[in-house]
């Protein structure tokens, strides 16, 4: 029997503070992503090179996805949703690197991500509706729904956490079991399936985060569509 999926191994100690492996891998992914973004965006030009074209494709696709869910200017949500999408995708695919376990296969990382979305949805709700308006959404359509709305607010972020954890962890767990049974080359189809699952889960986490964060914004009514859209950016 393999190790429990709920255990985390400590990599090293800083004084009394134990730094676990998922934290180390998370910071590694963050360093790689930040360095890559910095290197690509360091010299942007009007005639894009190959890297800049790929980056522009990613940003344009992200913008159109955001606009399809929340009408209006997609730049409001791009930093949060884009970072979530790219980070979770990179984290899920670190299972391809030998000896590295994806940090999203541990409950703590997913809990942190879901907490970020939770805080962001509250902040966006208060920002777009005001404190009173945001509190009023809990008694809609009637005060009778107050406990259900409160529970729903908690459980949907909880299920966001469990969904990502369960999918990524089960994939890593099954691969480790098959590896201990069969060995070389047999887990490769499973790893390909795991790549697909990782991509779909990253997309779903980002989409659901956008839906949760944007629901308050959508309730505030049609957003001010930027009229000067044509004459900006170039």
């Amino acid at each position, binding site marked *: 029997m393999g190790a*429990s999926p*709920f255990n985390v191994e400590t990599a090293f100690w800083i004084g009394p503070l134990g730094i676990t492996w998922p934290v180390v891998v998370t910071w590694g992914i963050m360093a790689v992503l930040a360095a890559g973004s910095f290197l690509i965006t360091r010299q942007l030009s009007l005639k894009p090179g190959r890297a800049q074209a790929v980056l522009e494709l990613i940003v344009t696709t992200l913008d159109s996805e955001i606009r399809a869910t929340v009408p209006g200017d997609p730049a409001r949500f791009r930093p949060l949703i884009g970072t979530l999408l790219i980070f979770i995708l990179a984290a899920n695919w670190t299972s391809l690197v030998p000896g590295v376990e994806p940090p999203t296969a541990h409950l703590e990382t997913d809990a942190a991500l879901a907490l970020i979305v939770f805080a962001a949805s509250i902040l966006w709700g208060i920002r777009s509706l005001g404190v009173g308006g945001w509190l009023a959404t809990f008694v809609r359509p009637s005060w009778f729904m107050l406990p259900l709305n409160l529970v729903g607010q908690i459980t949907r972020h909880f299920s966001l956490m469990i*969904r990502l954890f*369960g*999918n990524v962890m089960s994939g890593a*767990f099954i691969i480790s079991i098959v590896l201990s049974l069969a060995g070389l080359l047999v887990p490769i189809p499973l790893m390909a399936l795991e790549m697909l699952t990782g991509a*779909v889960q990253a997309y779903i986490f980002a989409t659901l985060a956008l839906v949760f964060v944007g629901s308050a914004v959508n309730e505030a009514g049609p957003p001010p569509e930027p009229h000067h859209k044509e004459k900006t950016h170039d």
Partner: protein
Amino acid sequence: MTDYVPAISILAATFAVAFGAIGPALAEGRAVAAALEAIARQPESAGAISRTLFVGLAMIETTAIYCLVVSLLLLFANPFAQ
């Protein structure tokens, strides 16, 4: 006296996954069938349909994942086993 806890935990984990997978499996089958029918009727909206389908499938799959998490909790983090 608590020797039966591991055995019951294993049985319960098996039942949780086995019966917990029935509902999501049927639901996902229905969802995919409906999506395929919709795509066959309106091939031009295949992109939007499949995007919604993926999100819906993930939501359905979550119930099965809950069962998996419960069974793993029973097997690895059982509070009643010594």
